[in-house]
């Protein structure tokens, strides 16, 4: 009984101990100070692998080449060869196993991303052949007249 003054202190120490013991159970084992030190590297190591495990959706044109060699050779050599197949045809993830999955974007909106003329001479945009989408056959899909695989004059 002699030192009742320290009773609240004991309660506080008890609470701190509870938090520290709870840490042992709740904090993941791989949580700690990693390569970049406490300031920038205080984290759960397993999360890096979680990010690495995210599914890759876009595969790149070389992935399309083997099956669609005709289209590949058709577009190669034209100005549109610099555009990835998947930019218009959609990400190729799961495509060979589930062919109809591809979502081809034939909309006018897709073409005018580049071909709506903007008078910006100091960028590459000013050098792309362009039209004014409000005046050039509004409402009609571009692919009605133009073949994007043979970027040139109307068919």
């Amino acid at each position, binding site marked *: *009984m002699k030192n*009742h*003054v320290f*009773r*609240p202190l004991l309660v506080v120490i008890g*609470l701190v101990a509870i*938090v520290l013991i709870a*840490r042992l159970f709740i*904090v993941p084992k791989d949580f700690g100070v990693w390569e970049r030190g406490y300031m920038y590297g*205080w984290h759960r190591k397993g999360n890096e692998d979680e990010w690495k495990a995210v599914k890759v959706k876009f595969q790149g044109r070389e992935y399309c080449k083997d099956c669609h060699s005709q289209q590949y050779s058709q577009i190669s050599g034209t100005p549109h060869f610099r555009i990835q197949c998947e930019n218009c045809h959609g990400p190729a993830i799961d495509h060979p196993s589930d062919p109809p999955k591809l979502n081809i974007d034939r909309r006018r909106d897709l073409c005018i991303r580049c071909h709506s003329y903007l008078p910006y001479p100091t960028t590459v945009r000013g050098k792309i052949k362009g039209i004014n989408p409000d005046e050039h056959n509004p409402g009609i899909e571009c692919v009605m007249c133009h073949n994007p695989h043979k970027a040139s004059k109307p068919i």
Partner: protein
Amino acid sequence: MVHGEVWTIKELFVYPNEFIYWSIQIVMYPFMTGLVAGAFVLSSLYHVFGVKQLKDMARFALVFSFALLFVAPMPIVLHLQFPFRGFNIFMTPHFTSAIAAFGIVFSAYGAIVASELWFIYRKHFVEIALPLKEKQDKTLFEWFKYLVFCALTLGVYDISEESLKRDEKAIKILAGVGIPVAMFLHGYAGFIFGSVKANALWMTPLMPVIFIMSAIVSGIALCMLTYIVTMEIRKILVSRKKKPSHMPQTTEEIKGVEMHVIKMTARYLLFFLIAAISLELLDLIFRGYTAVKSWDVLRSVIYGRDFVDIFILQYGLGNLVPFILFLMPGLTIRRAVVGTILVLFGVFMMRWNVVIGGQAFSLTFAGYMHYHLPIIPHDWETFKEGLGGALSIFIMPFVLFWIFNKIFPVFSFEKSH
């Protein structure tokens, strides 16, 4: 919908990912923390510096501070996207973040206030627990009461003259330690904002000091206001001749005591108000004089878009008017009430102008964001980060105070001293 999109309207050139992410609850957070710190400092003025005139106010302020203490973290919890993960701050604290210190500083402060309360009310706990212990065939309620108060004594039943003296000493030490901790608690709330280098309005080393000063102002004002309100209720009770045993005074006596306490407290309020305004003006003048890259957009916000909020509502209505009200001779209770409410409003507007004002302009310095407080909620998010959430936070300390008053009787206790 992206968080923040509901209440943000963008103007001119703003980055696509920018929204007012910190909304009303982050305004409430420093406001409530400030009240906690302010109320505690007020109570310590009596315990540490022996300002005798504040004796009545001191115990009251401490219990109120304790009630506010539980509310202070609520705005942050309501603001979190994952409130239940908030405990991670204790699990894996990252101390390079100002918010991580919250867990430690806040708990330390809570422990100090709780201990101080325990020493003050220990005798009271024992006096309730002991008779209940001896009483035969207790009712269910009495059993409950007995268990609660037994736990509150922490197993100490010694209330001899000597042990009570030791309590006094402990209270004094705790109150002394508590002042820097309370200052730190709120100073670091200012640090949370002041250390954000990406925000041109927030980043100033003066921010923690400004926050401390305005915290004390608001804490004192709230204590005065609540004190007046409780005194008025007592007056009504006395005049209705209900006269509970622990209220022996007449209406006139109460009035005399009340006026005396209010006058004393008002003096401290004015002192801290002057300090707070000076610092804020210093900050403003400095920004205008140095006029670094961000000044163009800051000026357009401070003197243009937020002019009414800053100069009319905060400095004018919230600082200047109450300043005059308190300085005019012949202070009355009614005038004090108006003054304290205006001071509280002024401090709230200061928090608003810092938190919302700091997000009123874009990181591009070439665009603006307008905040529209959700008033009628249409989902949980617009409730908790809207008017409803803010009001709930504001009402909560009063409810808690009412509950705590049952355990720590603020008024009946006066008789025994």
